[in-house]
Structure formats: C-alpha cells, structure tokens
C-alpha cells in the first residue's frame, strides 16, 4: 500500500518543489518579463476562457493531433522499410538527410501556397517535422533487432509480414518509442511556428500577438498552455508505451533493482 503511494509521490516531489521555489523567488519580481508566479497564474485563468479555448486552443490541438498521428504512421512505416533494406537506406539517404534538415520556417511558404493558411497546412507541417525522429529511430531499431530471433522466425517459415509485425517491430519497439517521444517536442514546436507565422488563431498566434503587444502575462499564459498541451501528448505516448513495452519495463527493472 505504502509502496503504491511512494511512486506518485516521488514523481510529484520535484515539480512541487520547483513550483514552490518559483513562487517564492518570483514573488517580489519587478522585472517586466519575469512576473511573479501568482500573476502568471492569475493571467492564465483570465486568458483561458471557454471562448478563448475554442478559438485558440482547439485549432492548434486538432492540427497537432492529426499531424502527429500521420507522423507516427508514416515515420514507423518508412522507418521499418529503410531499416530492412540497406539499399533503400543508401539510395534515399541524400534525400532523407536533406529534407530532415529543412527548417520548418523554410517550408511555410510551400505549405502556404499548396494548402493555404490554416489547420491543413499546420497539420501537414507537423506531420513533416515529427516524422523524421520517428523514422530515424525506427530504422535504427529495426537494424538492431536480434538476428537469432529473426532467424528463428525465418526457419519456422513465418511469413515476411508476420515476421515484420511480430518480431522485428516488437524488437525495435524501445527505439521506436524513444523516437515517438522526441517527435512530440518537434510536433509541438512546429505547430507553434506555423501558428506564429501564418495563422490568425491558435496557441502560437496567441503567444506572438501577446508578445507583439507586450502583454507578458498573456505570453506566459500561452507558454504554460503549450507546456500543458505538450505534456498531455507526452502522457498519451507514455501510456501507449506502457501498454506496448510493459514487458520491457519489467524485464529491465527487475535486474536493475539488484544492489
């Protein structure tokens, strides 16, 4: 029973301490950009009215969700393909590495012209940016899958499709999930940039317009909300990971507990 409580308690300890420290240290702040935490919290409540959530939060969350889902699917699919075929990897490397190093800002023009300003463009940019970390991790994970395990499946005449789904991908799963978690940050960053540059609503727009009108309180509200949205997305990923990699956690944590 106590063990059950200790888990959440340890994970909450650090954030609680940090927030408390922030609260106390910032209390008397007069710096225009570092507001007392109490003001930030007040601002957060004022900013995030229901109406505001519908106007600025919802579109961003929607674009983020759709884009991220697309990224997970394409990232894993292409990553697996590249991981399996040394030739595809070699032939496509110039292209993938080139595209991967494109700043989103440089892609906004193309998105703008092809899809127009709005959620479709944002989702597309998110999908583009978030695909790469997943793709790279997946392809590395697939390449690292244990040969003995794959040979076992081959010998038993397991079809290529099943071998892929039941052996290679599960074996690559720890790497894949690491990639997915990295992609969360890329996705959030991208949706915010797209919002800032070419949207008339959304979280990024809120932050940039608050910034341009020097409403620091609202800037902080936007920042906090971005952190929250990102955290929620991460939590979803972590939950998925617990389901998919439950065995892995037990497997590894078990021997780790030895002195």
């Amino acid at each position, binding site marked *: 029973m106590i063990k059950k409580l200790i888990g959440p308690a340890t994970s909450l300890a*650090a954030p609680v301490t940090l927030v408390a420290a922030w609260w106390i240290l910032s209390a008397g702040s007069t710096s225009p950009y570092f507001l007392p935490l109490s003001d930030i919290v007040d601002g957060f409540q004022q900013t995030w009215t229901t109406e505001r959530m519908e106007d600025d939060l919802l579109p961003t969350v929607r674009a983020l969700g759709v884009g991220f889902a697309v990224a997970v699917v394409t990232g894993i699919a292409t990553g697996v393909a590249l991981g399996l075929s040394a030739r595809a990897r070699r032939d496509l490397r110039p292209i993938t590495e080139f595209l991967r190093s*494109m700043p989103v800002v440089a892609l906004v023009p193309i998105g703008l012209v092809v899809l127009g300003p709005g959620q479709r463009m944002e989702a597309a940019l998110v999908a583009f940016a978030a695909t790469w970390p997943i793709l790279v991790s997946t392809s590395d994970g697939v390449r690292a899958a244990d040969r003995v395990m794959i040979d076992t499946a081959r010998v038993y005449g397991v079809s290529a499709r099943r071998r892929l789904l039941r052996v290679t991908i599960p074996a690559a799963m720890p*790497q894949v999930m690491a990639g997915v*978690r*990295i992609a969360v940050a890329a996705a959030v960053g991208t949706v915010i940039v797209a919002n800032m540059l070419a949207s008339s609503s959304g979280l990024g727009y809120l932050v940039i317009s608050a910034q341009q009108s020097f409403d620091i309180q609202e800037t902080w509200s936007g920042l906090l909300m971005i952190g929250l*949205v990102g955290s929620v997305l991460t939590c979803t990923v972590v939950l998925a990971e617990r389901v998919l990699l439950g065995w892995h956690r037990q497997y590894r944590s078990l021997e*780790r507990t030895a002195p």
Partner: protein
Amino acid sequence: MSTRAVVSTASADPRTGGMRSGAVRRWSRWAEPALVVLALAACWQAVSVLDVLPREDFPPVTAILQALVSDLQTSELWAAVGASMEAWVLGMLVVVSIGVPVGMLLGASSISYRMSYLTLEFVRTIPGIAALPILLFIYGIGQDLTVSFVVLAALWPLLIQAMYGMRDVDPVAIETAKVYGVGHIRRVLLVDLPSCLPYLSTGLRLSGTFALIFAIATSLIVGGEGLGAEMARAAVVGDRPLLYARVLLTGLIGLVVALGLTTLERRTLRWHVSQRGAQS
C-alpha cells in the same frame, strides 16, 4: 512503398552482396543515390516549369543552382555560414556534455527517473520558439540566443535516447561487471556507455540535425548573424532563386553533417548488429 517488396529484399541473405563484383557495387553505391536525387530535381523542375506551382515563387532548379553558384562566391555568405556553424558547434558541445550524462543518469535508476520525469516532460515540450520573448529578454539578439535555442531544441533527442539506451543495457552484462568488482565509474564507462552507443548514435544524429535547423533558423526568425539572416535578406526583396539557393545550402550542410555522423557511427559501432551485415 509496399512492405512486401521491402521485406523480400531484406530477407535475402546479406552475403548475397558479396556475389556481385566490386566494381558494380562501387558504381551502384554512388550512382543509385545520385539517380534518386536527379529524379527528384527533375520533378521540381517540371513542377516549376509547367507552373503547377507559381513559377515566380518556386523557381526552376536550374535558376536555383545558378543563384547558388554565384552566391557561393560571396564572402558574406561564407561569413554567415561560419556564424551558423559556430552556433551549431557550441550548441552541440553543450548538448553532448549535458544530454549524455543526464540522460544516462535518469535511465540508470528508476527513482531519479521518476523524480525528474514530470518536470522534464513539461519543460521539454515547450518549444524554444514559444519562449522567444523570454529568451530574447534574457540574452538579447546574438550568438548567445542562437546557442540557447540550439540547446533547447537539440538537447532532448540525445537525452531521451540516452535514457532509453540505459534502460536497454543487457542485465547479464551489468551483472558480469558487478560480480568482477568493476567499480561504478568504470562500469558506466565500460559497460553502460558502449551498450548505449547505438541509442546515443541515433540521438546524436537527431540532435545534430535539430541543432543545425535552429542554428540556421534562429537568425531567420529573430535576426542576428547567420545563414537564416541571409535567407531573410533574399526573401525581403523577393529574390526567390537566391532564397531557395540558400535553403538548398541548408539542406546540403545537413547532408554533410549527417554523413559525418554516420561515418562516426560506422566506426564506433563496428561491433553492433546493425553494422555487422556490412562486414560479412
């Protein structure tokens, strides 16, 4: 790409590569990627020339290449590239020296992991760009700001990979080291670190690219010196071929960085499953 096609190539024994003659292999190693690049360039050329996208805004490859060639002969461009690369190097130094040890530490113990995890997840998902107003106030425009952007963006991939890598170290290997009385520090250096290398290498490649993107884009978004600022300059006057030449240059630098890191990986991971096929 259909899974079936890919799987069938993969299931062929890696040794089949040995059957083909060396010359053919060497030729195809360069020729095939080059063909892919040419094909894509041709696609863009067609899209532009046929006005599928407005030609004024999406100039043909030929015009972009022309602009690139003449641009490469100006010293301003090289100064800008130099500034961006400096930010990249500085940023990566910080990223590696923080990301690897902290990530490994967090992955090593479930307690430290649990304690830091919520805070990290929250901080990590706030993109640097959103914190721009605050960062701008802290650093002001300049290399410091660029480096801090680079670090904010590039730290996490490496850190997370290090964390996952640490959790994937083979317990039998750890037990072996423990039983032989190998001390903590040496165990980290000689068992944990090499075990994590495949993960770190993935992380490094991801971080390297993120860092590059931000080293370049920061000057595009907020100003200061760098390749991004040069892009902005081209954009302001509507010189599209020049703008895309500079974007192309960004991608080329990315390519060079990635190939460099891949070579490094091939050296350090000679022993790893992912590289073994290449040897046999």
